[in-house]
């Protein structure tokens, strides 16, 4: 009997990968071009690799779900040389979500300090900008920029995978202008 994993792999050989390019036609807002441009900018600045540490500083976990989606085969962020790492010490970028809760402010600061320079901070989602619908609570410090300096905001509640890709491109543009 052929084991199912072989059947699955064979199917991929015949039908091609799940990645966006083949499954759906190019999008009107051109996520494909955008992704390619992202790859080039990364190459110039950081030699084809950008390492991201994600920090949930108080989010409802909606933003995390969409970050997972960017990593999944359909968007496959890693083909552009961008990957998520486990330690801030390996990271170039901190991707911070959520209104920063008072209980997480210290941990976020320490994670920022642990990230070697040059480092960039991306605030992901509407809450990360100004606290969103949680602003004004005794337990919320506010947007990410209340705690660590922010280089870029990616809007959305939560941002779609395409918005996340577009946001990382904007970051790279500002990085190369420095």
């Amino acid at each position, binding site marked *: 009997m052929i084991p199912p994993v072989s059947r699955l792999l064979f199917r991929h050989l015949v039908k091609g990968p799940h990645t966006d390019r083949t499954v759906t036609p190019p999008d009107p807002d051109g996520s494909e071009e955008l992704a390619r441009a992202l790859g080039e900018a990364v190459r110039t600045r950081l030699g084809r690799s950008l390492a991201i540490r994600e920090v949930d500083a108080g989010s409802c976990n909606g933003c995390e779900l969409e970050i997972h989606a960017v990593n999944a085969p359909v968007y496959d962020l890693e083909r552009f040389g961008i990957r998520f790492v486990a330690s801030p010490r390996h990271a170039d970028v901190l991707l911070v979500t959520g209104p920063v*809760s008072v209980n997480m402010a210290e941990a976020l600061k320490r994670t920022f300090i642990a990230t070697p320079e040059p480092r960039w901070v991306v605030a992901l989602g509407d809450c990360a900008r100004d606290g969103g619908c949680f602003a004004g609570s005794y337990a919320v410090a506010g947007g990410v920029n209340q705690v660590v300096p922010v280089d870029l905001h990616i809007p959305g509640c939560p941002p779609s995978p395409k918005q996340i890709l577009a946001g990382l491109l904007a970051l790279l543009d500002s990085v190369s202008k420095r």
Partner: protein
Amino acid sequence: MMGNVTLLEFLSSGVPVEGHRPWPRFHLDNRAWRALVEQLSAAEWTLMAEWAEPGEVHAAFRDEDTGDIAVASHPCPERHFLSLAGVRPGAARLERAIFDLWGLVPVGLEDQRPWLDHGRWPSIHPLAAEPKPPPEEPYTYPFLTAEGDGLHQIPVGPVHAGVIEPGHFRFHAQGELVVRLEERLGYVHKGIAGLLRGAPLERAARIAGRVSGDSTVAYALAFARAVEGATGCEVPPRAHWLRALLAELERIANHVFDIGAICNDAAFAIMLAHMGVLRERILRANQTLFGHRLLMDCVVPGGVAVDLGADAMVVLPAMLRGLRKDFNRAVSLYNETPSLLDRTTGTGILTGSLAHRFGAGGFVGRASGLAHDSRRAPGYPPYDDLDVAVPDFHDGDVHARIEVRIAEVRASLLLLGQILADLPAGEIAAPLPKVAGEGLAMVESFRGEVVAWVRLDGDGTVLGGHLHDPSWFQWPLLEAVIEGNIVADFPLCNKSFNCSYSGHDL
């Protein structure tokens, strides 16, 4: 008063509260509350949620024999109440949180350490009538200890590996063997009970949908149903059916991703890749049909915000057909990979008795023989007209929790087929009557039972509200199941529980 007495008979010794719907609420004085604690040691009454307001503590119960549901409220002007944790261990953390937020002291609670309060907020007991000034230094948390030859500690978090919510895990390990795991949570506490107090209804509904992003439909639905209970709003039939459609789509999207992620933690990455593709198909259909990938703000008090277009009857059945086929393919991959089954079978066993003592719901309870599902009991429309299959397994290990998810995905796919076939026509929302009142609602999220309680005044302002996450009764069990397993199996166990940090920390 021991012996065979039902929950309603017992609570009727208290004073019923006017305007609490659809289930009653009773005020219990000191003596009646004490009697309740005694009665709980013998009665089959499940604690569904426990919360407070300044000067009053509330507990919602379900009588497992009669199916009755009621809220017991205990005014405590002296700022202390008798703890339920001795008879309902799941209450321990809830009562620690009650002390942190409202300053009401649970008398007789063994563990008096702060829980959500890390000593960093601008005040102590922020939701009490008179909050106290903050401590000078954040608290140092005294972790429980373990002593013995060769024991060492592994501290993990709050910023821990991967794209995940923050929490701290303290392991005591002997070599690879976990002797004790202790969780410390509360890092993502956002003060939701405080935000709900005095919020206009629309804003409160938005916040309710963001208590735990992965269960946004379930939370929005629970909140909406509580509001509709409080105001006596009659929701049109089409709205009920659309709500169920949204809820089942959310359940499937979460379950398929969970199955993939658990296998990924056993280093079987192809499963995560495959399931990620299936999840993306659902999210894209959500975006096309309802305008939001995670379906946030689609359920509103009074009905639903978006109607299903005519194209849905083509898009959805086609998507579901493909999904069923590819899902079955993935399941056979799981079932026919012995090296993967070897990791999941017999790992992280939760005994039925422990699950029962904590009243654990969702896949955690159902993998250990507890087949409660609020879609069936107490039930809510339109599920009364549908066949809801609730799988239950008894092994209690990681494999069983995967099996529950697989069975639930299949059950939800069947439900979606029934919903699409019988979807009634008509209005999708009804105006909310402007009346004051209190409402309680239970909704089955993919993770278990979400409980919502709300008090409204006559002009559409929320005077108080509470949202209870099923994770409250699952997190403590994770500590129990990891004992005696190896450290490397913790991610596997943790993911198979997939408790919500945000929903728990509130």
